[in-house]
């Protein structure tokens, strides 16, 4: 156990315990308010190049298990927690061992509430963590730091892979992987879709040649405006398009809409959403720093979901262009399963049987 310093963009320096030596990490500092699901958070590709602070004070209670990872590696740049409260469990790997094995810097015994309050008041902030003493060199590094524009390329798997439907196959989905959580693919499979996952830079022709019923745009990290959306633009009107999180923002951009950066984002498992079509409210899992500008969407688009807390757009559809998407995470993992039926609805609506009927 060594010591580390956290240097924030506003000059604040905090002291913490670190699990590794000789490390210096830079990244965007974000907080997550979920009380469970730390392993899912660590492995969520949407957190690539970010340093995640957990507001819930006790992390590590139930260890880590293979089935909870939502991608093949830990994606966060570093992890900041109040207290690692792990206890030895039979046959279960501990959080410390997991982070060590993956060479991920984890800071503990730090005032996570203070950090969260700073982020909430100043807005999204970059930070530097080092196991050395803070010097001018570190301050300069932080001042010059820029969030990587190619974060999608860094975080996603760059291969084409096919996943069969569970049970009766009713539709064939192409999924463009901008850093997809494996649970999105699983939920599509469970809803009866064959899913072919393509890398983020897939060409329009590859998808059109595949004879798919629909395209799903995955979640992912970073600013949606840094992502090449040529393929998405070309697919509009040719195939039904569904989007989640980054996929939702890319759909808006492809329609000529705009996105903006939220003050400090929505990251947690307790965000209320109102479905404007039914007037029903449910709780969602969220992880996004950018949002779709409601006014920028074309008149053919209808806002379907809004965040009850701040009124931001959480979902829209454009029937004329066959686009339906949501900002929140219906697949959960971690978080509430309240919106899981969205997958069944989407797969059913894209099903060939449905189209022919």
């Amino acid at each position, binding site marked *: 156990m060594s010591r580390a310093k956290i240097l924030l963009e506003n000059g604040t320096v905090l002291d913490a315990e670190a699990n590794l030596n000789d490390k210096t990490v830079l990244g965007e500092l974000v907080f997550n308010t979920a009380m*469970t699901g730390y392993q899912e958070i660590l492995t969520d590709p949407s957190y690539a190049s970010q340093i995640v602070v957990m507001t819930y004070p006790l992390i590590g209670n139930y260890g880590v298990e293979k*089935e*909870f990872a939502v991608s093949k590696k830990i994606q966060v740049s570093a992890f900041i927690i109040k207290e690692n409260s792990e206890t030895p469990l039979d046959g279960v790997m501990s959080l410390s061992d997991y982070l060590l094995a993956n060479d991920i810097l984890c800071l503990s015994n730090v005032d996570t509430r203070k950090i969260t309050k700073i982020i909430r008041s100043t807005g999204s902030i970059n930070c530097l963590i080092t196991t050395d003493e803070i010097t001018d060199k570190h301050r300069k590094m932080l001042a010059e730091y820029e969030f990587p524009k190619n974060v999608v390329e860094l975080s996603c798997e760059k291969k084409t892979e096919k996943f069969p439907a569970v049970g009766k196959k009713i539709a064939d989905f192409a999924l463009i992987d901008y850093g997809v959580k494996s649970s999105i693919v699983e939920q599509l499979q469970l809803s009866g879709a064959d899913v072919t996952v393509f890398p983020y830079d897939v060409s329009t022709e590859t998808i059109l040649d595949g004879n798919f019923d629909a395209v799903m745009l995955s979640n992912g990290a970073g600013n949606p405006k840094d992502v090449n959306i040529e393929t998405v633009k070309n697919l509009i009107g040719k195939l039904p398009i569904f989007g989640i999180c980054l996929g939702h923002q890319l759909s808006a951009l492809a329609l000529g809409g705009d996105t903006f950066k939220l003050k400090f984002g929505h990251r947690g498992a307790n965000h*209320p959403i109102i479905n404007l079509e039914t007037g*029903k409210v449910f709780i969602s899992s969220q992880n996004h720093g950018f949002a779709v500008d409601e006014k920028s969407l074309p008149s053919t688009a209808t806002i379907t979901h809004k965040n009850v807390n701040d009124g931001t757009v959480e979902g829209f559809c454009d029937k004329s262009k066959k686009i339906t998407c949501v900002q929140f995470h219906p697949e959960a993992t971690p978080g509430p399963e309240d919106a899981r039926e969205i997958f069944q609805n989407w797969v059913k609506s894209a099903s060939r049987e449905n189209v022919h009927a």
Partner: protein
Amino acid sequence: MPKDLSIKKIIVIGSGPIIIGQAAEFDYAGTQACKALREEGIEVVLLNSNPATIMTDDDVADKVYIQPLNVNSLEYIIERERPDGILAAIGGQTGLNLVTEACNDGILDKYNVRVLGTSIDAIRKAEDRKSFKDLMSEIGEPIAKSEIVDNLDDAVKFVQKIGYPIVIRPAYTLAGTGGGIAHDEDELKSVVYQGLTASPISQVLLEESLLGDKEIEFEVMRDSNDTAITVCSMENVDPVGIHTGDSIVVAPAQTLTDKDYQKLRSASLKIIRALKIEGGCNVQFSFNPKTKKYVVIEVNPRVSRSSALASKAAGYPIAKVTAKIAIGLQLHEICRCENSEVAI
């Protein structure tokens, strides 16, 4: 749906004396509810038999009746005050029983008084063992397997189906006299024999043993729009088998993975929706950490002792929100003013 404007005057039933199983938490809940209703411009008439409470202070309700909590005094007050509605779900079991009784006697119909929040029907469904069992099997939520038997052969047959250990509870005996737990056929024979002898009607209930499971609770809220949320989860430090009163409860649950937590959360939302509860409710589970299977132990269709704990631990005013839901407000319309600084 916004506030129901036809409701101008409400009778709130207090919790009565402080006894074992019903302590000051209902005074806390009742006081919160009275304040919440007055905040909405509603005239609050309070009935409570216990003057040594905060809720009977002269600035909590508009009018206070310190009278016995029985149907006679309730009818007297209703006749004098002519309220539009009655709120029962925050006075603990006493309040619920009184309103149920008044409803059965036709008093509420006679004076056209509506039961606000959770309906009497929903309360009955949750509290009656048989109808609760039926409802759970209808919506596919597991409960402990059980069977009533009056002879040893039937007992052995039942255990062959579900296995050991098994809990044996004789019917109509005091403090479980003659009951016990059997781990094999020899024990089963002796305990069932003992139970049948102890029971005045020679009947025992055999129940699947949940000993050693994790005991998890959820505090759940639902409104008239069918929005349902969990306020928090709670976990008993001691396993099932140790009485809650002898144990320590922590909020939120500490040892559940997100997957298991969400499984129980989804089940508690399904249950509160099936029961059509409007307001707060408490759902208790027994969760086996090895098999990852759970069983619904019971549901309290009202503000309970756990709600007071959950309110304090989570900073979410369950009784206040229950009162607001009772007058038609929906969860997303209710502002958590005192906690506006809470990070979301």
